[in-house]
């Protein structure tokens, strides 16, 4: 038993080392490509991870980094919140009534596959310039995975469970609270996780439209100032924050999961 346990922790240690090695290899290849200008003289050391890392520290010291991150996370959080508040209940309703699912499925699939960026002109006409169209575009991108995943979860709730609670005298409201919501919760969280992925990707281009703060704005601004090390630093922040958000949602999903 102790042998089994130690071999399992050995496996975990090995996986951890391999992951660290993967990151190190990636950074080394990236640094080499820029140091030796392997992708052309345009992409010099300023585009490398070393310069980017130094710029990141400088931006952290000056506070620019936190200002832009705060602005972005605020818009992203609001957009995601709207997507969950609208998409969650909608998913429950659509999943509960079979005919409603048939009625909406094709339209929802088309809307889901329509890039939010195609809606930019409409968003600007409807919401004007500023944070509101950005929040709208994130919410639009994020709402479909929440709706579709939740509806799928609700439609798969075992009829035996619903019958059983009705046998104990449950009315529709109790069936919803005691069976349908807890049974579909993991798929709701899975939908939110997918929504975080797509919303985070939409955030950056959406912030390139008429706002003067945020990580997307920072990308354009550092380009305009030829501050390529800051550009790289901002790219690093976008990637790392995306990873952190996904880890949080993965953890949350494990917490509410009742299958595995």
């Amino acid at each position, binding site marked *: 038993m102790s042998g089994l346990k130690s071999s399992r922790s050995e496996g975990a240690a090995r996986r951890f080392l391999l992951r660290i090695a993967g990151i190190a290899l990636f950074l080394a290849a990236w640094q080499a490509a820029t140091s030796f200008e392997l992708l052309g003289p345009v992409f010099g050391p300023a585009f490398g991870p070393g310069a980017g890392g130094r710029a990141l520290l400088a931006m952290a010291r000056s506070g620019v980094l936190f200002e832009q991150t705060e602005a972005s996370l605020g818009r992203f959080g609001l957009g995601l919140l709207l997507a969950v508040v609208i998409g969650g209940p909608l998913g429950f309703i659509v999943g509960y009534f079979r005919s409603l699912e048939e009625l909406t499925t094709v339209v929802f699939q088309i809307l889901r596959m329509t890039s939010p960026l195609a809606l930019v002109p409409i968003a600007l006409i409807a919401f004007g310039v500023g944070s509101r169209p950005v929040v709208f575009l994130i919410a639009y991108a994020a709402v479909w995975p929440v709706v579709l995943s939740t509806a799928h979860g609700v439609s798969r709730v*075992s009829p*035996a*469970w619903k*019958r*059983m*609670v*009705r*046998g*104990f*005298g*449950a009315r529709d409201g*109790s069936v919803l609270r*005691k*069976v349908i919501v*807890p*049974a579909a919760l993991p798929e709701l969280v899975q939908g939110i996780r997918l929504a975080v992925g797509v919303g985070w990707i939409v955030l950056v281009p959406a912030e390139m439209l008429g706002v003067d703060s945020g990580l997307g704005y920072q990308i354009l601004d550092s380009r305009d100032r030829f501050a390529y090390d800051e550009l790289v630093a901002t790219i690093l922040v976008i990637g790392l924050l995306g990873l952190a958000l996904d880890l949080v949602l993965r953890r949350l999903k494990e917490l509410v999961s*009742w*299958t595995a």
Partner: protein
Amino acid sequence: MDGVNLRARASLLAEALPLISVEEAARTFGAGPRAIEALGPVSFEVRSGEFFCIVGPSGCGKSTLLDLVAGFERPDAGRVLVGGRPVLGPDPRRLLLFQEHALLPWRSARANVELGLELAGVPRADRRERARGLLHEMGLAGFENARPRELSGGMRQRVSIARALAVDPDVLLMDEPLGAVDALTRLRLQDELLTLQRRGARPSSW
């Protein structure tokens, strides 16, 4: 005034009347030439404290009959009365134990047993105590916090029996609830059910 009188008289009558009476009840699914007669007209009576068995080949309408008494289905013809009143829908006073245990996998064994008490509005502390006691009685002491997937088939079925007993039903209807467990476990659980029935004098049917 009159209401009190009527109720007193009704309870006197209840002593004499059968607890369950099925009168020429029938159930047909579908209509026209493709209609399936799931249950032909059938009549019987069960008195309080009786253990009543329905035996027959599969597909003969046993489950349909139990659904009528439990209130999940309504008869197309005839009547089903429990306690002198027609059955209009499911009611925790006449519980149906299913072939599949239908435990909620996200709830612990104790929380599963508490389900019916929750729906009846029993306070948390009382629920907890009652569930613990029943699990103990069913030989599941120490498994209060286990999830259904951590329990064996026989243990799951015991939890579902405890869940049913928790609400103290007048009638316990059993639709082959032991059909899915192995032969030895089935024999033991059958014995336990008989003991419970004798002790509580609950009329049952399966």
